[in-house]
């Protein structure tokens, strides 16, 4: 029986939210991902831990279809990402949230317009009132309803990250991909963002894949941790297990 560390459920019982099998990705002669495998069940919160330049961001960009893998299969919510094009890819992306490392808030739009953008694109039939309601709900979730008419440039780094999280949550995605969510934030704000992420995961019962090298993030958000070394899934386990590990390559992260 294949038991999930974070949920305690049998992994074989339900189809995985994300299944990556034998994934390869290279840029010229540089092999970034080499036979990478991973499965995420519903409700799991998994942190992919790796050094800078180890291919973590490439991995989640392949998952969302922003990069094409050279080989292998990525199944998200039962859909093979490489085969999804046009409308089917858009439908899949509506169910997958992506929090960018740089927040990627649209500079020329207000906070309201930033949040409305994915709503209007994916759910075109929503009325003005429904859109407004969803925007306010998402902003209330991150505690920034008062910033609704502000421009991104008027916000602090932590506030921008929260707004980016609100934009990610607004479509109520089933799977959320976080790319280095605490990069560029001070440790206190970083911890606040991680707690907000875990709260939102519980509130909306989503599955999370977090890419990080921040040990605070790993400790708080990672019920299950996957260590990415040499483009492969080098180790898969819990924080406590890795803290006790005698493997030198694992220890370098947890010492």
């Amino acid at each position, binding site marked *: 029986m294949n038991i999930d560390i974070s949920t305690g459920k049998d992994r074989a019982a339900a189809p995985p939210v994300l299944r990556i099998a034998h994934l390869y990705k290279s840029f010229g002669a540089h092999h970034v991902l080499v036979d990478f495998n991973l499965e995420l069940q519903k409700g799991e919160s998994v942190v992919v831990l790796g050094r800078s330049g180890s291919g973590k961001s490439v991995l989640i960009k392949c998952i969302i279809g922003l990069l094409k893998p050279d080989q292998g299969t990525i199944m998200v919510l039962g859909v093979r990402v490489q085969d999804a094009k046009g409308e089917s890819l858009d439908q899949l992306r509506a169910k997958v949230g992506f929090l960018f*490392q740089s927040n990627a808030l649209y*500079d020329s739009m207000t906070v309201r317009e930033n949040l409305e953008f*994915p709503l209007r*694109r994916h759910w075109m039939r929503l009325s003005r009132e429904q859109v407004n309601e969803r925007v306010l709900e998402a902003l209330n979730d991150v505690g920034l309803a008062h910033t609704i008419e502000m421009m991104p440039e008027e916000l602090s780094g932590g506030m921008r990250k929260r707004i980016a999280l609100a934009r990610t949550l607004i479509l109520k995605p089933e799977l959320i991909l976080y790319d280095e969510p605490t990069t560029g934030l001070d440790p206190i704000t970083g911890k606040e963002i991680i707690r907000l992420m875990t709260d939102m995961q519980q509130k909306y019962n989503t599955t999370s894949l977090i890419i990080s090298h921040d040990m605070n993030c790993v400790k708080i958000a990672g019920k299950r941790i996957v260590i990415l070394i040499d483009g492969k899934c080098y180790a898969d386990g819990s924080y406590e297990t890795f803290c006790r590990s005698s493997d030198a390559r694992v220890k370098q992260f947890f010492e």
Partner: protein
Amino acid sequence: MQQETSIKLFLAEAGDLARFSARFFREAFRPPYEVAAFIRQCFVIGYRSLGLVSLTTFIMGLVLTMQLRPSMVAYGVASQIPAIVSIAVVREIGPVITALIFAGKIGSSIGAELGSMKVTEQIDAMEVSGTNPFRYLAVTRILAATLMLPVLVLLGDAIALYGAYLGVNIRGITSFNLFWSQVFDNLSFSDVLPAFIKSYFFGFAVGTVGCYKGYSSRKGTEGVGRSANSAVVVASVVIFIIDLLTVQIAEAIGIN
């Protein structure tokens, strides 16, 4: 060796730009159409350039007339100044100067804006949000630039001729009616049409080069600055090449 590398780089860049233009034609005429974004871009690109174009073309018309005047007087054809200036402005100087001003203002701003969006992952965010960023950002800007520049050229030509009217009257006296009747008596359909048509190509070049440079921006903020700068330089060179080609083509088909 270095020269060979430069030639290769130039050819690669030209090839990429041609592919980018081809993508525009593939994407522009397929639904869904980004109508709201296109109208907004027409306002940003067209209306907001009006002040600068008006000022520069007015000064250009005025200065051109004042510079021409001594020679025209020396040859005893001072009365032909409105005719000469209007032909020069409408056929060549108006479209080219307006297009160069447009490249400086709009080409650089498109290059910088899209470059900044590229390096801060906003273009990726747009794609993840179910939007085709090429259609939303590039197609709308290229179309708006293509359609707005001819309008600006027409307005710029008219304003330049008002500048010329002022220039004529600084040292002499020519009535408003006489000036304009001389202008229109000497302008023909073949003066206006090729100039008007080529300004569509100028607008397309400015929009395409600006978007291409922004889209291919790399290396953080330094790359954004470089994109904005090279968008202006490349668009300006392309404007002169198009100008040369359209004159030859108009000559060949007998409308010049």
